[in-house]
C-alpha cells in the first residue's frame, strides 16, 4: 500500500542557545493509506509538535516530511497553505467553528481557498454534512448546536476538501463520554471507507479505537504498535446500557 506520509529524521527545536528546547529528536515513521493512528504521550512529549509538523502548520528544523510523494519540509508559507488545503483536514478539541456563521458556511470555508469551482461548493458541503448526520442542521449557528453537533460540523469541514490525511487533535477532549464515543464512531466509519486518520489523545480508551498506536516521550517515538481496534458502536451500546441500568 502507498504511504500517505513518510517521515525521516524529523527534528524540531525552539529557541536558541541556553534556552533551546528540543521538542522532537529524530523521528522516523511511515503512515500507510487507510490506517487509523492514535498518537499518545504525556504533555511535553512532542506529540503536539509532531501533529503541527505533519499538519504542515509548522516547518521542521531538520529532517523530511513527504506527504503524498511531495517533500513539504521546507516549503514557503504560501505553498504550505496550498498543501493544507489540498491534502489535509483538521479537527480540533475546541471545534474552532466560525461564530455567527451557519453550519453549511462553516463546512464550505476550506473550499473558499481552493481551486474548486464555486458551483460545486454547496453540493460538496451538503454531502459531507450528510456523512456526519447533520443534513437537517444546515442553517444552524454554532451557538444553536450541542458540542457533539459542533464537532460533527467540524469533521464535515475537515472532509470537504477530500483530504488524503485527516488530523484530529483531542477531538473528544471537550465532550462527555457518550458524545465522545459517537464522534469515535464517525471516525471509525470514515476509516472503514478508506480515510487515513491520525488522532492525538491522552485517553487510552479513545486510543483503543485506532488500529495503530504511536507513543511519544521526550521528543522521541518510543513505541509503535499495531492493534485490533475496538468497535466504537459496541462501546457506545455498552455505555448506553450501563447508563440505563
Amino acid at each position, binding site marked *: 500500500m502507498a504511504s500517505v506520509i513518510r517521515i525521516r529524521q524529523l527534528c524540531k527545536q525552539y529557541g536558541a542557545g541556553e534556552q533551546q528546547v528540543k521538542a522532537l529528536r529524530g523521528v522516523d515513521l511511515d503512515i500507510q493509506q487507510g490506517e487509523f493512528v492514535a498518537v499518545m504521550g504525556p504533555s511535553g512529549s512532542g506529540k503536539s509538535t509532531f501533529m*503541527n509538523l505533519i*499538519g504542515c*502548520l*509548522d516547518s521542521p528544523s531538520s529532517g523530511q516530511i513527504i506527504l503524498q510523494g511531495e517533500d513539504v519540509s521546507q516549503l514557503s*508559507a*504560501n505553498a504550505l*497553505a*496550498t498543501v*493544507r*488545503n*489540498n491534502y489535509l483536514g*483538521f479537527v*480540533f478539541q475546541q471545534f*474552532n467553528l*466560525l461564530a*455567527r*456563521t451557519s453550519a453549511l458556511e462553516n463546512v464550505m*470555508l*476550506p473550499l*473558499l*481557498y*481552493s481551486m474548486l469551482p*464555486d458551483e460545486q461548493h454547496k453540493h460538496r458541503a451538503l454531502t459531507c454534512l450528510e456523512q456526519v448526520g447533520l443534513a437537517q442542521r444546515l442553517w444552524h449557528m454554532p451557538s444553536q448546536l450541542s458540542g457533539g453537533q459542533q464537532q460533527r460540523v467540524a469533521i464535515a*469541514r475537515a472532509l470537504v*476538501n477530500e483530504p488524503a490525511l485527516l488530523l484530529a487533535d483531542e477531538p473528544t477532549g471537550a465532550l462527555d463520554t457518550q458524545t465522545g464515543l459517537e464522534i469515535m464512531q464517525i471516525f471509525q466509519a470514515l476509516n472503514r471507507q478508506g480515510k487515513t486518520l491520525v488522532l492525538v489523545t491522552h485517553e487510552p480508551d479513545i486510543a483503543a479505537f485506532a488500529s495503530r498506536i504511536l507513543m511519544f516521550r521526550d521528543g522521541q517515538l518510543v513505541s509503535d504498535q499495531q492493534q485490533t481496534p475496538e468497535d466504537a458502536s459496541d462501546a457506545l451500546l455498552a455505555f448506553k446500557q450501563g447508563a440505563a441500568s
Partner: protein
Amino acid sequence: MTNRKLLMGAWNNLSVNLMRSILTMLGIIIGVASVIIMLALGNGAKRQVDEQIRNLGGNVFVVFGGSFNSAGVRGQAGSLQRLTDADADAIEHNISAVVAAAPELRSNVQVISGNLNWATNVIGSDNRLLVAQNWTLSDGREFSAAELGRGAKVALIGETLRRELFGAGEAIGQTIRVNKLPVTVIGVLGAKGQSARGDDQDDVLIMPLDTVRKKISGINRANPKAIRSITVKVATQQDMPWVEEEMTRLLSQRLKSAGNDIPFRIRNLSEIVETRMQAMQVFNSLLAGVAAVSLLVGGIGIMNIMLVSVTERTREIGLRMAVGAKPGDILRQFLVESVLLCGVGGAIGIVIAALTCLVLAQGFAMAAVLQWQVAILSLGFSAVIGIFFGYYPARQAAGLQPIDALRYE
C-alpha cells in the same frame, strides 16, 4: 477566493458587529461630509464672487474727480469737478488696452409713470457705459448717435425700475417723467442682481449725458463740460497695472493741479471684490483643513478598530490558515473590511453632505455648490484611507503563525 465572496465575507463580518462598525464609520462620515461641505461652500462663494465680477464687468477702473484743498481745508472726493467728456475720450483714444471709457453724471431724481412713482439715480452717459459696465438689453435698443448728439429725451431703464413703474405692462415707447421732464423709454436693461456690496444694481436709469447735464442736474458754470466720473473698461487683467499708470500720467497732464488739489482719483473696482474673494478662500481652505484633520482622525479610528478586530479574531485567522488560507488571503480579507468600512462611511458622508448643502441653499440661502467630482474624489480618498490605515492591522493578521493563532486564547 473570488472578489465577490471576499466582499460578502467582509460585509458579514461588519454587519455582525453592526454598532461597532457604525461608530467606527462615524469618523469617516463626519470627515468626508465636512470636507465636501467646506469645499461646496468655498465653491459657492467663489461662484458668487465670479458672478459679481462678471456683473461689474471685470477689469474696470473708475476715475473720480479729486478733492479741493483750499488753505488746508480739504473737500470730499469728487468735490473738484474738473473731469470732462474730453478726458474720457482721451483715455479711450490714447490707451490701446482700454475697451471703453464712459463719462458719467449722476443725479437723484423722482420718476413718475401714470399714478406710480419711484426715487432713483439717473446716470447721464452714452452707449460706452453699457460696454464698460457689462449691461445687456433685454428689450428695446441702445441710444442712437442722433439722440446722444442733441440730448434727446430718451432713457434706458433697469429691471427694478421697469417692475416698479410698469409691472407686467409694456415699457418700451412709454413716457415717464424724470423730475418734471417727460422722457421716452427706448430700452430695458437685462437684470444683474445684487452688487458685491448688496446694492440693487437694477435700480438704474440711464439717459444721454447732455440730456442729464442740461435738463436735470444743471450746468456747472465753472466747467460746463464737467462729469462726475469715468468708467474705464480694460481688455485683460494683465493690462490693468500699466493702464492705471498710463491713465495717471495722461490725466495729470490734462488736469494741471492747482496748489495742493488732488485733481482725480482712480479706483479699481474688481480689486475690492477680489480681495474679498481672497479672504474667503483663505477662510475656506482653513475650514477644509480642519475637516481634513477630522478625516485623518477618522482613519486612525479605523486602524484602531481593525487592530482590535485582528486580536479578537486571532483564532479565526489561525483556523482559516489551517484550512488553506494563504497570508495574502488574510491580508486581503482585512484590507477589504477596512476599505468597505471607509467606502460605506464615505458614501454616507457624501449623502449627508449633499443633504446639508441642499438645506443650506434652500433654508439659509447660502451658496453651496456640490460638485460630483468632489464627491467621487472624496469617495476615492476614503477608500485610500481604508487601505492606508487598514494595511498595518491586515499585515499583523497575515503575519501570524498558524499554530500560534490557533492556540491563542
